[in-house]
């Protein structure tokens, strides 16, 4: 009886086990499928390596890798924010990827000091204003947004949003906690409405006249400017980008990036995939299709990004930005930023 049942168990295990001989790589991606699959398909075409994909929230994927432990099929973790990459590293589910190709192609401030993660693309979070109501001369720094003159004129999304958390986290690095808290309180006092919706909603609210300036990521505006829907394009054309703090620290930037999972079984394929994402053609694709800034020097930006203008970016340590994420959120809680 025992023998029969153990043979049966073995049989089941063979049936269910997800092993295969062909070269493949398992990708856990917090980037949406539409924004990553074309690149993965190109990679498969070029190398013959099959890519298995699962997408979801970064934290959920990180938890999944953790609970799967040493048997986790994950080879590569892709995230849309530096905070999550730092967290994955802190939880010990990533490994060093000492690939020379990465070091040569990605500037040092866009990589982990110990090479656990690297950026793939860059996005900025500048001020956007209504062309017909706001004189760009009246804008200067992020700090100046707490001025009395902006009362009931600012739109920005909720503090639940990771981009805002990273922005405040970056400010903690440059200004210190006390000053950042005072700034956040001042900004909340100038909100035109309780934060709601996503970045596109903030831009739409500016155009509709509910507020005069918004803080949003560049690729949302770029996406609207290239939308199939004419009304959306028209809406976006009424908004312009202002790059704050250009004389001093520069505009806040964030990254989407990638790590190799600690228990990766397909190590070579994983590294090959990361290399592929840093090739010129992949970087150009990101810039053209998603309107994100390439991390590699010398890659041509999309026309829309060029029209938004060049800018000076903050060179705050992204690792630190990731590490103070929780502090940033508590600070926003205290400032009454919903």
């Amino acid at each position, binding site marked *: 009886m025992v023998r029969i049942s153990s043979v049966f*168990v*073995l049989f*089941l*295990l063979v049936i*269910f*086990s*997800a*092993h295969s001989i062909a070269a493949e790589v*398992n990708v856990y991606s917090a980037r*949406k*499928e*539409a*924004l990553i699959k074309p690149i993965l398909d190109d990679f498969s075409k070029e190398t013959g390596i099959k890519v*298995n*994909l*699962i*997408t979801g*929230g970064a*934290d*959920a*994927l990180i*938890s*999944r890798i953790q*609970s*799967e*432990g*040493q*048997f*986790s*099929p994950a080879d590569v973790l892709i995230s849309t924010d530096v905070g999550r990459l730092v*967290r994955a590293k802190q939880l010990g589910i990533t490994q060093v990827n000492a690939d020379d190709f990465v070091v040569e192609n990605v500037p040092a401030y866009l990589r982990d000091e110990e090479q656990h993660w690297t950026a793939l693309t860059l996005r900025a979070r500048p001020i956007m204003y209504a062309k017909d109501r706001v004189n760009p001369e009246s804008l200067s720094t992020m700090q100046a947004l707490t001025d009395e003159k902006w009362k009931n004129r600012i739109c920005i999304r909720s*503090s*639940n949003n*990771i981009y805002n*958390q990273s922005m405040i986290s970056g400010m903690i690095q440059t200004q210190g906690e006390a000053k950042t808290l005072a700034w956040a309180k001042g900004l909340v006092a100038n909100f035109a409405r*309780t*934060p*709601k*919706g*996503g*970045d*596109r*909603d903030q831009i*739409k*609210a500016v*155009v*509709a*006249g*509910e507020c005069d300036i918004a803080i949003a990521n560049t690729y*949302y505006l770029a*996406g609207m400017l290239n939308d199939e*829907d004419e009304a959306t394009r028209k*809406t976006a054309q009424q908004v312009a980008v202002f790059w704050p703090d250009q004389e001093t620290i520069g505009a806040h930037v964030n990254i989407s990036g990638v790590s190799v999972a600690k228990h990766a079984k397909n190590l070579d394929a994983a590294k090959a995939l990361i290399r592929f994402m840093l090739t010129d053609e992949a970087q150009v694709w990101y810039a053209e299709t998603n309107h994100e800034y390439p991390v590699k020097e010398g890659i041509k930006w999309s026309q829309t990004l060029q029209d938004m203008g060049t800018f000076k970016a903050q060179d705050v340590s992204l690792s630190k930005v990731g590490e103070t*994420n*929780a502090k940033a*959120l*508590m600070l926003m*809680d*205290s400032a009454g930023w*919903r």
Partner: protein
Amino acid sequence: MIKTALKGSAFTLYSVLAGLFLGLPIFVIFASFLFWDAAIWQHLSSTVLPRYISNSATLAFGVGFGATLIGTYLAWLIVNYDFYGRRLIQWLVLLPLAMPAYIIAYTYTGLLDFAGPLQTLVRDTFALGSQDYWFPEIRSLTGAIVLMSLVLYPYVYILARTAFSEQSQKYREVSELAGVSPLKHFLKVALPLARPAIMTGAALAMMEALADFGTVEYFGVSTFTTGIYRTWFGLGDINAASQLSGFLCLFVFILIMIEKLSRRDSQNYSSRQGKSAQAKKVRGMQSAFLFLLCSLPVTFGFIVPFVQLAIWTFSFSDISSLEDYPEYAMNSAMLAGIGCVVVVTMALLFSYAKRLQPSKTVSGFIQFVSLGYAMPGTVIAIGVLVPLGWLDIKLNMFTNAYFDVQPGLVLSGTIFALIFAYAIRFMSVALNNTEAGIQRIKPSMDEASKVLGDSSIQRLFRIHIPLLKASLLSAALLVFVDILKELPATLVLRPFNFNTLAVKAFELASDERLIDAALPSITIVLVGILPVILLTKTLDGIERKYA
């Protein structure tokens, strides 16, 4: 005698074992209370917690009230009055079930927002500036309550309708003889009799509202759910997030208790003696008025958003993306199909075990596994990941030791994990239906079959299942549609390269590509409509059989 007791206890044993297994994720959540971090709680309670509590409570009670109001009046009018267009309304009235709350939220925002067509029209027509007029803000707590009531009233409607139609015609005749007005009869006789069923429906709608994340997040309303996400993702504190979920569970526990207490003092069994309620013919103006009144909820809860989605789909969708849709639809339908069979079977087992042995242990377990319904999907997913990951690792150790094989992950990241999550998440929906149904079966039925020497298994198949047909079907349908709409847990637990309609819709919508999300959204609605139609037909048939 001894034999029956043993049979009973076997059932009890099975249900307790199944309950234990199902309860694992909830144990995981509650285990988080062992790691109490005072600093985090100090921060939460001094800043955001009061708002979470008040918003969540307002939302839950608001939706409970709204869904009860709509569901009850619809059920009463449709059961008791034969007005022009009643057949059509009966078909339409359940359709909002197929409309996920976060999708109706997206569509109405597109319609009613400041930049949307309606307000733009108002501004252009009257040449008004942005600050010159008042317009209700849809993205608010009130807006969330209204929209959720519009898609959740079917929970109340289904249960209330079954309860009203089982009420004997005699009651009404007596009322009429005594000269009691129809309204007074409704308030004094019909409503109290149907109250347990209505309360159950209301409790379901409230739990669904409590667990909702998509809508409140989009509307910028801070509730427990958004707080859980925020604490976990933002603060990176999965423990405090689990503890928040634990508190949410307590809130639900209180709800369930209130609902149970309301049932306690009303033990009434449906009697099939005499006719069930008969619909009264109405004509002319009265009929038109009733038609209008009954078509309102479905108009706003289904037709308007559906048309808007259809317009978006046809004007902007990329037809080339259609080729993947059969696969997504198949995946969604397969999960929902397997899930609803598993969940309803288990719910029936639990309810029957409780009937055979109404012990505290069994009732306790049933209540325990009901808690999953109010937990946000992501939290359930974590609760599922932990024990399954552990089991997988142990399994690998075992096979490694005995057969020198390491199969890797057998349970995690498979369909099994998904079904497990659905079972814990939606058990409550099925249980409420089976419980309500089984309570309406007279104990004398069981006595009679015992006397005739039926075993408890025979009794289940000969008596209970046939009598529970309507309840089981409602349960299956609700669970099917719920699984179809479920998002957070599916997202985290699904296997590689596996997409469902909800996942596609959400990915596009959360990327603020609302219009692109219209196609998968409308597909969810269309797949969800099929079982709704099936249920309507069956309920109709069952009612007519007893008419």
